[in-house]
């Protein structure tokens, strides 16, 4: 006996569309619990550099700021971000750290995480964090990249 697969060969309406189309989805930013804290990430403005120091003391004094995390707050080696689609062992040396540790390697790399009572307070706190980065040579064009100098 054969049972016809009714899903193949015809358009299927998705059940999740009913909530997404009416603004009733629940994305992470939509979750709102009592005493919930919000994290905001401070990112590198430098493409390549040595991270000499992060002074978060002034930011920590802002009312509503609970915690500021940097690579120094982790006892263990900073975890690397695994590749999902091409998990080749050859690429492991190039995996990025979850938060910049000693060096920054691209503009936008996470340098610190501010945890505060509201996103607005956390974003205010970003401006009070002093980051000292010693700039290093960057790879801006393919020709520089071909020299294979390690960053």
């Amino acid at each position, binding site marked *: 006996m054969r049972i016809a697969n009714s899903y193949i060969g015809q358009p299927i309406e998705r059940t999740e569309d009913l909530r997404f189309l*009416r*603004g*009733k*989805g629940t994305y992470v930013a939509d979750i709102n619990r009592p005493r919930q804290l919000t994290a905001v990430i401070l990112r590198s403005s430098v493409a390549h550099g040595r991270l000499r120091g992060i002074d978060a003391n002034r930011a920590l004094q802002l009312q509503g700021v609970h915690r500021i995390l940097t690579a120094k707050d982790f006892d263990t080696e900073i975890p690397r971000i695994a590749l999902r689609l091409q998990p080749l062992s050859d690429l492991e040396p190039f995996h990025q750290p979850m938060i910049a540790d000693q060096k920054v390697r691209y503009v936008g790399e996470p340098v610190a995480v501010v945890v505060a009572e509201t996103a607005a307070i956390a974003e205010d706190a970003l401006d009070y964090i002093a980051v000292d980065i010693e700039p290093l040579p960057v790879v801006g064009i393919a020709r520089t990249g071909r020299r294979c100098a390690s960053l």
Partner: protein
Amino acid sequence: MKVEFELNGTRVGTDVEARTTLADCIRDQFKQTGTHLACEHGVCGACTVLMNGQAVRSCLILAVQAQGERVVTVEGLSRDKSLTPLQTAFRKHHALQCGFCTPGFITTAHALLTEEPEADEERIRDVLSGNLCRCTGYVPIIQAVLEARSAYAQTDDQE
């Protein structure tokens, strides 16, 4: 600062900091989280709402600027038990996947078709070019809006 406006047909009022955007006010104070924030600087269109019928980016408008105005979000363009013709067309044409950009497309397309129910494909593409979708692509969205036109041509009572 105190601010009062009409949100999806209901008179609402709250106390906000002067710097609070309309988007944050709608989401945080009034818990209507259908309006989504992505770029937060007017590029992506996800936070689009209607203010007195006009499609505006709620991340670029301060909550206090809505004082006395009529604001409609995707929730206000929705029914409890069924989809509107525009939403039905989006579903039929698979014009959404993750759904994050969808409320911005619905509000923008609604504003367009309310004023111009006969907008042609070029006009629809032009107006929707201010909204970014990162997973579905635009072809199904354009098809959905084209199909929804007939519903707007027939009725004058939407929004």
